[in-house]
């Protein structure tokens, strides 16, 4: 009898307690409804939540807020989220997003490794390209090339950049999340974004006159215009003594130019991707 009475009391008090609690919560949740914007919440879910800051906001949720409040109309700022995020965000905001845009990856446009370039002094100080470039633009005589001290390595959130061991760095395209931080930090602007499916690359950044470039580096683009003139349809354009390759214009002769380039600074991308060394024959 005692036992049953106790069970009864427990039953009753828990029911009362639960009921009151439920009532309270149900009422309260109604009264405090407006708490969070649904769109913001949905956007937050669509974002990867890495809080990497590559969108330029303090974190995923502040980007979500900015998008939701239409303060920012660029929906593609979250590079790490990739196409999935983009599509999801687009859906929430009611905008169609082009999923077919090719992924861009960073590329270090320089082949001037230690043995191929000249130097006039011994730099001593921080292992940081921006720091080194404050002193006579770095110890390499070419003031456009990669200093190889790896400022870009330090900022890359994806650990996608590594030193080659001979005074340069290279991007591992498969890890790159297209955030563009390396492009921004590099003092010499030698990193530029290229499409993932790039065929060829002019792996040089020197805007020096051909003669000067030749004196400083054995693989630098000398702006001889052979590529541009001999293969006018191939999409090579020489500006400021530097050949720029166009990826939206891949006409005939593209590959032939590689052979004709006197300094051999046009290289096939696929090869570079798999090869560890800088040698291109």
């Amino acid at each position, binding site marked *: 009898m005692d036992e049953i009475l106790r069970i009864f009391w427990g039953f009753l008090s828990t029911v009362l307690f639960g009921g009151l609690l439920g009532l309270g919560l149900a009422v309260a949740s109604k009264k405090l409804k407006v708490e969070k914007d649904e769109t913001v919440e949905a956007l937050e879910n669509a974002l990867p939540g890495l809080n990497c800051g590559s969108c330029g906001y303090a974190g995923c949720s502040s980007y979500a807020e900015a998008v939701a409040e239409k303060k920012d109309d660029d929906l593609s700022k979250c590079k790490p989220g990739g196409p999935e995020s983009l599509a999801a965000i687009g859906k929430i905001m009611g905008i169609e997003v082009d999923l077919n845009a090719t992924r861009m990856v960073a590329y270090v446009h320089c082949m001037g490794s230690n043995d191929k370039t000249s130097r006039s002094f011994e730099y001593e100080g921080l292992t940081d390209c921006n*720091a080194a470039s404050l002193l006579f633009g770095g110890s390499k005589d070419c003031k456009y090339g990669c200093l190889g001290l790896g400022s870009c390595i330090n900022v890359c959130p994806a650990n996608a950049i590594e030193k080659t061991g001979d005074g340069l760095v290279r991007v591992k395209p498969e890890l790159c999340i297209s955030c563009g931080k390396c492009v921004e930090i590099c003092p010499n602007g030698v990193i530029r974004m290229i499409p993932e499916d790039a065929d060829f690359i002019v792996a040089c950044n020197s805007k020096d006159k051909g003669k000067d470039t030749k004196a400083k580096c054995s693989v630098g683009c000398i702006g001889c215009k052979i590529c541009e003139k001999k293969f006018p349809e191939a999409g090579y354009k020489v500006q400021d003594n530097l050949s720029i390759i166009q990826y939206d214009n891949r006409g005939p002769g593209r590959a032939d130019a590689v052979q004709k380039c006197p300094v051999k600074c046009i290289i096939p991308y696929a090869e570079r991707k798999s090869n560890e060394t800088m040698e291109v024959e």
Partner: protein
Amino acid sequence: MKRLNTFPKGGIHPRDCKEASCDKVIQNASMSNTAVVPLSQHIGAPAECLVKKGDIVEEGQLLGKSGGFVSANIHSPVPGEVKEIKNIFLPNGISTPAVVIEMQGEFSRLGKAVPSIPWEGMSVEELTAKVSEMGIVGQGGATFPTHVKLAIPKGKTCEIFIINAVECEPYLTSDHRVMMEKGREVLEGIRIIQKILSPSRTVIGIEANKMDAVEHLDTLIKQSGLNMEVMPLQVKYPQGAEKNLIKAVTGKEVPSGKLPLELGVINANVGTCLSIYEAVVEDKPVIERVVTVSGGAIKNPSNLKARIGTSFRTLIEDCGGFSEEPAKIVAGGPMMGFTVYDLDTPVTKGTSGILALTDKEIKAARQTACLSCGRCLSSCPMGVNPTKIFKLIDNNMIDEAAEAGLMDCVECGSCAFMCPAHIPLVQGFRTGKKILRKNAMKKAGK
């Protein structure tokens, strides 16, 4: 004995190494056959080039015209033919166009007596115009165009004019020698500035390791009954830094991020005063300056009066060349100066010294991680936290570094001098400031 004034916080006492050259009378330096005259010898916009290849120029002829509000004229130091205009690197690591002049023809001033121009009757405007025309820039190191400094904005007044005769950088003795040998001219220059600024008080601040200069100037002032005073200061680096000097002299702190004019103070270097004298009284543009050539690797350390554009090599040869292999060639003092790798680097308006330092002198050691010893904090005259700021910059947290006081740093180098871990703190701060500027520009651009 009364304690001499100084700034209270931070500061260091490196060996001053001035004994090698402080008694050497200023000699005229040789001139190299070609003068390389950079068009940017000052802070601000480079001068606009007025000559082209093949032009024949006279001594003192205008080569470059002030290229903006903060900019200065450049004059030819020698007569000759313009051989080319090429880009060169200045010691501060910046690339600038320079006019290369091959010396030929006749000097119009050199060795000739020039009549002094009476200036008492000139108006303030005329005087400032003269300063501007003659291309005078501050010779204390910052090379800020002097006419801009002297043009006080409306609503502000100059209460105190301070002459920076501290010369706190080790090795350097050029200001010291100028005071000893050209005291009268310097005082005359100060009087010209007094006329322009009409301050109620004028103070010449000199560190106590130059008591002979203190006495010399004091006597001259007393003799002529001038309205200025000489104030000896305790020896402590960086007393010569503007804000610290003002604190030492007046006891007041220039607020963070503000100019000295906020306190009604203007200051100028002794050499600048001499230049003003020469400009106004002798009608002479800045075509030469006094340079201390010293350091353990120099055979005969000296003070030389050199034409702008003369190569470092010429000056070093004037001093008997190297006595041993130098580890570093420095333009300026060892605390704030820049290393150069090319002895063809020319003397500019801002070159106060050329030092050839030996391995023994520079005390290089392997860089290690920060020990958190706090020496950088206690030596910083600006009261910032160098190790914290450096670590933030090192981790790409530039905005946080700015918040922690990066922009307050005057790059005096006290912290890096003291750091037992030999961390290039100042280089880090320069890098941080560079990135900060870049970011700000990008933001403004957007």
